[in-house]
């Protein structure tokens, strides 16, 4: 078990390194850097001015060196610019002193500076991440019990009318991407079109003060898309369990149907959905980006869109590190959890 986790951790770190390098490389392609120079410096810079601007700030060097600096395994640059100023990566724009740190990368806890939000990346990530964590919490609160109930009810008796209608409902929910359900929800419940103006169409006010009125629609929108998938997995695993020998034995013993479902079947039926719920996190991340954009809720996903739209390199790297970490960590947890929950695998 320990070896298994160690190996998984190794692969995870390798994946994270590769992914961040890809993001780093893509954001540091020449046209992106030119756009950055023009937005940061002067929109009407000549090509040579762009070159010197980038050269003075250490942008026009080998991408591997820059990546090493960002990571914190290579010493940060100190460049005496063509305009006479000396700039250092670790000085954050102030003058370079002898006691300026040599290394300043992610490993040293320095995530860099966001050019769009004009703040430390780490601060923004913390702030926005907290907003998204609140959203995610409520999404999970709605999605997981809802999906499990639908799945268990549908899987109790395979082929019954309850099963067929609930399965259709879950197909409908997997077929409705967030930008469709969000738009429909807003049109129906937040405008006067259908005479049911019950909720708010924006969630901006929910950042300080969550109310039923401003948070219901975004939470429902994210929860709905994932719900169908988890429900179908639960149903599949429930139907499998319900055909097992020990369930038949319990029925013949005279245990009531309710007790069979609750006591005997449910525990074994919930192993598979657990891993699915964990693997759902990356998809939730997607949904969160769409919903935060649609409802103007300034969380992690909204930050991603802003950073990507404006080529805010260090912000974007921070965002991708966090999201890649979330994806890989949930994969790891789901693997370990599966081994832990399933006695057949645990013993062998």
């Amino acid at each position, binding site marked *: 078990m320990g070896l298994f986790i160690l190996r998984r951790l190794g692969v995870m770190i390798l*994946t994270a390194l590769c992914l961040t390098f890809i993001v780093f490389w893509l954001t540091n392609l*020449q046209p992106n850097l030119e756009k950055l120079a023009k937005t940061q410096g002067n929109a009407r810079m000549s090509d040579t001015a762009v070159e010197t601007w980038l050269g003075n700030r250490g942008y026009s060097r080998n991408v591997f060196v820059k990546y090493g600096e960002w990571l914190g395994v290579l010493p940060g640059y100190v460049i005496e610019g063509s305009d006479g100023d000396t700039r250092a990566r670790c000085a954050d724009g102030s003058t370079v002193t002898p006691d300026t740190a040599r290394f300043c990368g992610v490993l040293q806890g320095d995530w860099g500076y966001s050019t769009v939000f004009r703040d430390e990346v780490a601060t923004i990530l913390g702030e926005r991440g907290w907003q998204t964590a609140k959203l995610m919490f409520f999404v999970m609160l709605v999605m997981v019990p809802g999906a499990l109930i639908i799945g268990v009810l549908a899987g109790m008796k395979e082929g019954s009318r309850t099963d067929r209608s609930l399965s259709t409902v879950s197909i409908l929910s997997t077929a409705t991407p967030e*930008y469709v359900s969000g738009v429909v929800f807003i049109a129906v419940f937040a*405008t006067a079109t259908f005479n049911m103006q019950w909720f708010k169409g924006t969630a901006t006010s929910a950042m300080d003060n969550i109310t039923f009125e401003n948070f219901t629609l975004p939470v429902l929108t994210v929860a709905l898309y994932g719900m169908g998938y988890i429900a179908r997995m639960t149903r599949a695993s429930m139907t499998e369990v319900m055909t097992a020998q020990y369930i038949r034995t319990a029925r013949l013993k005279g245990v009531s149907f309710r007790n069979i479902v609750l006591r005997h079947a449910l525990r074994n039926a919930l192993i598979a959905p657990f891993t699915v719920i964990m693997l759902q996190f990356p998809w939730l991340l997607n949904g969160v980006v*769409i919903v935060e954009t649609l409802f103007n809720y300034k969380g992690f996903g909204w930050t991603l869109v802003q950073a990507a739209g404006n080529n805010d390199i260090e912000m974007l790297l921070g965002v991708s590190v966090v999201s890649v970490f979330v994806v890989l960590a949930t994969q790891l947890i789901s693997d370990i959890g599966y081994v832990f929950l399933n006695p057949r695998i645990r013993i062998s």
Partner: protein
Amino acid sequence: METLTWTGSLGATLGPVLIIAVTLLGLALIGNFVAAYARSTQAVTAAGGAVVVPWRWSDRTSFFELAIPAVAVGLVLYAVEAFGSDPTLSDWLTEAGLPGWLNTTITALVFLLLGAFFAYLLQRAPAALYEWLIRWSFLVIVGVILAFAVFSQFTAYGGAGIFGEMSRQFLPVWLALALTFGLSSIFKRRLGLYGKLFDSVIGMIGFGLVMFWVFTAIFVGGFDLIGTHDPLAQVSGLKNAPPGVPMPEGETAFPHYLLGGDNLARDIFSRMVEGSVVVMMIAPLATLFAFMVGITLGLPAGYYGGRLDTVLSFLANLILAFPVILLFYLLVTPEIIATGLPNYMAMVLFIFPLLFCGVLIHARYRNQPGKDYTILAIVLAPLVLLYLSVINQDGSPVNFWPLDFFDIPGGILVVFVSVVFVNSPTVFRIVRGLALDIKTRDYVAAAQTRGERPWYIMLWEILPNARGPLIVDFCLRIGYTTILLGTLGFFGLGLPPESPDWGSTINEGRKLLLIYAHPALPPALALLSLVLGLNLLADGLREESLRD
């Protein structure tokens, strides 16, 4: 010209029937759940026969058993009342001069009580009643809709309102659908898996929805039917106009904007049907390419295993660990397009269909060189030319081939490439898993003993036996690709902003959503119906292929 209503005079006669049928269907569905819940509390005797033994000690309905259905039924009744009745109860109470809080309380109480009453009745009704109600109300709904679609073809212009005119515009699609369904159900016994689809209701509904949009795309894109206006034409004065608005005096075109105008005064209905062309052009083809990539890489990964498998699986997991939207933002920005990265990716990704076809043919006819080379030449020559024309784009870094027949219009290549790129790792994983499973079968061992080459075994032994799950996943994946395309459009990436595809129109509509809800809804519902259709189709196919 007057403003059109939704259903016109025809709707006035058919409308009440539809409302009653929908209400009955809703009540029957809820009642079915309530009754199923009540039934699930019955025990099974030791003899195995089901004997009605209530689990509760008294026969009285407990509070919770009634409360939850009561709230649900009450909400349904409220919704029906809010739509169907004018004035509503709460309007009437306001008229009577009651203060707001009392009004809310009374409305809530009335509907809760009504809900409790009906829920109690629902619990007591026999299950057979629900079966009957669900079946017949469903049939009535379908019948009313069909009757509406048929009658609206014969009424005078505007006699059947907006829906009637839309139905009239869709006439070629209705005819094509009727023909497809008629022929297919006559010959269904001879059509293999496709014919079996017509045995399952779910499969037929899904197939119908998908074919509706396929035919729409064919008639709009190929024959310029169905659409009422030019999807890019702007008519002054119709900016954000509501559905059914008449054209200003002096315009010779179609007399109404059926679903209203968008924020640039273009016809929403025409844009919606035009959007189906973009989706139908990209989504199935991109899925096919993703399958080619996934199959060509997944089969050897599963069959050989070892280091090849480790490396390929690592790469696939790498792409899968990326949040899709971040990947899109990194690939589909103007700056990245300027570097030509998508063109290089197209070069790599589009070579896989060539490889696939080449290996497929060569593996089969290796021992008959004459036939082998003829077929290879016939198949590969046009494909190679096509490939070179597709990857060569004027004004991009990949532009070396002199015989460039066509250029793919702005943005589509980029969108296509990124969608294929995102989809292929998942296909790879599915194919790899299937190959791992199938390679242990006896017929594979037999082929190995016969001395067949590995690629022959992979493509002509393993792949045909993996077709069931792959066909089902193909349907699902077209739906997912449609969702991805919509996501790209929703963030305004890739396709040009005036493009009528559903994602872009939803994106434009959402900006003024709180003021004008009507521009965003038609493309959203269109996308929903297509993806739903594909999912139902996949479900039907899965069910029927499992039955073999």
